């Protein structure tokens, strides 16, 4: 895997209600069966639903191609920019997904995990074979749609919220207070996911539709429609010296890690960033739930070291806690600058979140809600205000101050983690 994969940070968006309304009016959805040129474009037909509206609905899908995607571009535009490529498009309840991923042969070591995912998928898509060893482009797209929706549901559950809690219109404050500017965790537009087989495809998309110059992955916000995009790439950066393409497991871990960032940032509409430990720590926690040996980092200082070697983080944290050698919460939890993060800081971020999640995901959800709480979208808290809110919220939710957090966490680590 690309241990140091540093996906571009999401830039802040500003509310522009009239633009989003215009965009909604311009959108003209069609079902896949209505897509133009189906006869000449056989890859448009999904073998698992056969593009039948009832099958799409049963799978929780809204439509296939054509789909309005990011600001001022739809699925057909993307295909053209990428090189008139054959893409699979799926719009789910909360995501718009485009994929150029090709067929993939499941590796022995991931067979069991993927079989479980296929089994879950088959409940909604009966034509899926639970023991499939080759994942065709459509099947891969279905798997990513399932993973994305599961991550969304898990995040929303953690927050103790449901779809109907979020506003359907901008500038609305509901019974549960201000929850953003739209129905998708507070974002007006659905979350976007692009899965690129090749780096060049990512590079072209980024160049054309974002201000980023990156062919290894992207996180970006489309201000006009209020959508957060995640783009992942299967092709490795250094393909000549190792396997040219990432495994399905590596990509699934990248998805879990980076989607966590987008969901957390998007909650109540993305206009400011929380302290890095919240998003990066939770992203590690979720990524390692998929497979703990594949770790991703938004940023790490030590470029010279091969961090992929270090995946067994429990004994590292245990040893450091035993010798009272770790950054205290007062300092670690106050960082907003990604550039300060070293590898061992990243490990500590994960462990702090690991501990808090052991006390109940709903409590961590409450903490995020407190940090994102404001009266209207135009209020952007300063870092100092956020840190004050954070300290008060930790005291209120967990019953300890930051020094108490250190003590409680250290006790838990000593008791819970392996020492070697």
């Amino acid at each position, binding site marked *: 895997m690309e241990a140091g994969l540093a996906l571009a940070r999401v830039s802040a968006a500003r509310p522009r209600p009239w*633009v989003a309304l215009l965009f909604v009016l*311009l959108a003209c959805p069609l079902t896949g069966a209505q897509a133009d040129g189906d006869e000449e474009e056989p890859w448009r037909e999904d073998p698992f639903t056969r593009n039948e509206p009832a099958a799409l609905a049963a799978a929780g899908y809204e439509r296939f191609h054509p789909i309005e995607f990011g600001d*001022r571009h739809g699925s057909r535009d993307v295909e*053209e*920019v*990428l*090189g*008139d*490529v054959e893409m699979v498009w799926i719009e789910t309840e909360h995501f718009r997904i485009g994929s150029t991923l090709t067929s993939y042969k499941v590796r022995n070591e991931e067979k069991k995990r993927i079989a479980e995912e296929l089994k879950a998928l088959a409940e909604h898509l009966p034509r899926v074979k639970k023991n499939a060893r080759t994942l065709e482009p459509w099947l891969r797209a279905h798997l990513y749609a399932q993973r994305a929706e599961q991550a969304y549901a898990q995040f929303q559950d953690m927050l103790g919220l449901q779809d109907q809690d979020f506003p359907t219109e901008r500038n609305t404050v509901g019974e549960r207070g201000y929850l953003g500017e739209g129905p998708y965790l507070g974002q007006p537009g659905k979350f976007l996911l692009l899965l690129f*087989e*090749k*780096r*060049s495809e990512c*590079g*072209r998309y980024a*160049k*054309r539709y974002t201000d980023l110059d990156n*062919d290894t992955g992207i996180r970006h916000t489309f201000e006009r429609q209020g959508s957060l995009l995640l783009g992942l790439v299967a*092709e490795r*950066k*250094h*393909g*000549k*010296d190792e396997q*040219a393409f990432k495994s399905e497991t590596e990509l699934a871990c990248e998805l879990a890690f980076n989607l966590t960032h987008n969901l957390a940032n998007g909650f109540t509409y993305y206009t400011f960033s929380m302290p890095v430990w919240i998003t990066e720590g939770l992203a590690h926690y979720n990524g390692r739930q998929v497979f703990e040996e594949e770790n991703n980092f938004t940023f790490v200082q*030590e*470029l*010279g*070291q*091969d961090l992929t*070697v270090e995946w067994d983080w429990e*004994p*590292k944290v*245990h*040893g*450091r806690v*035993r*010798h009272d*050698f770790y950054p205290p919460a007062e300092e670690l939890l106050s960082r907003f600058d990604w550039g300060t993060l070293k590898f*061992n800081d990243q490990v500590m971020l994960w462990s702090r979140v690991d501990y808090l999640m052991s006390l109940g995901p709903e409590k961590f959800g409450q903490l995020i809600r407190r940090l994102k709480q404001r009266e209207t979208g135009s209020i952007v808290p300063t870092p100092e205000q956020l840190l004050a809110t954070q300290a008060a919220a930790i005291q209120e939710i967990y019953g300890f101050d930051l020094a108490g957090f250190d003590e409680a966490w250290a006790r838990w680590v000593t008791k819970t983690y392996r020492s070697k």
Partner: protein
Amino acid sequence: MRQRTSRELLNVSWDYPVYVSETEAAEVAGNYSRARGPRKALPVEKAYLEITQEDQRPLLVLRECDACEGTDDALLSTRFDNEKTMLKAQWFHLVKLPTHVTDDSHPFHNLFGEQEMPHLFLASHDGSRVVPLDGGQSQTDLWHAMDELLEHAYLPDHERSLKKQLKLLDALDGLDEEENRLAADLDDVIEKKGPKAPKAKSLRKKLERVRAEREEALAARHDVAALKLKPAAD
């Protein structure tokens, strides 16, 4: 095998230009939408301007094809060491275009000439000097073509820079290996014996020294690699 820093430095960094028509640019600026005309190939001079965006470096333009499946096989050898190619490539503006540039309506189609389309070509930034290649060329032929364009565009001497860079990459590999080992040892000592253990102190010192040397080697490599472009002829 090359270590991480060298691998990063040897990474072939592509540009992926996408043509945005005046209509599309006006839409974004004016915040409106209107029907777009059919795709049309740009005149070759305009295509060069679009691709280079005032970048004066010589160009290496590669078109993807279905057979290559996204790899750089048309440029990099599958049989021989590619380091010299990668190092020479750093002085080019590397452009990768999609497969459908073969369509005669693609905006950048005319870059590839009117005859049989080459798989890649090297060119001066304005297209006044072009060396087409079929993708199956020998490494020697590729280097010869690259040297020709480099000598035309830059002040001497890229060959000397290349030799020095190779030595610096070897040095960086050694430093990376040492840093990895020391950092792992330091972690181990801290986690087993504590941060105040005598060995931790000496390891920290060594690690600091290696990191400083690495920074120096990186700066030296940067200076060595910085060739000067020849002044533009009047």
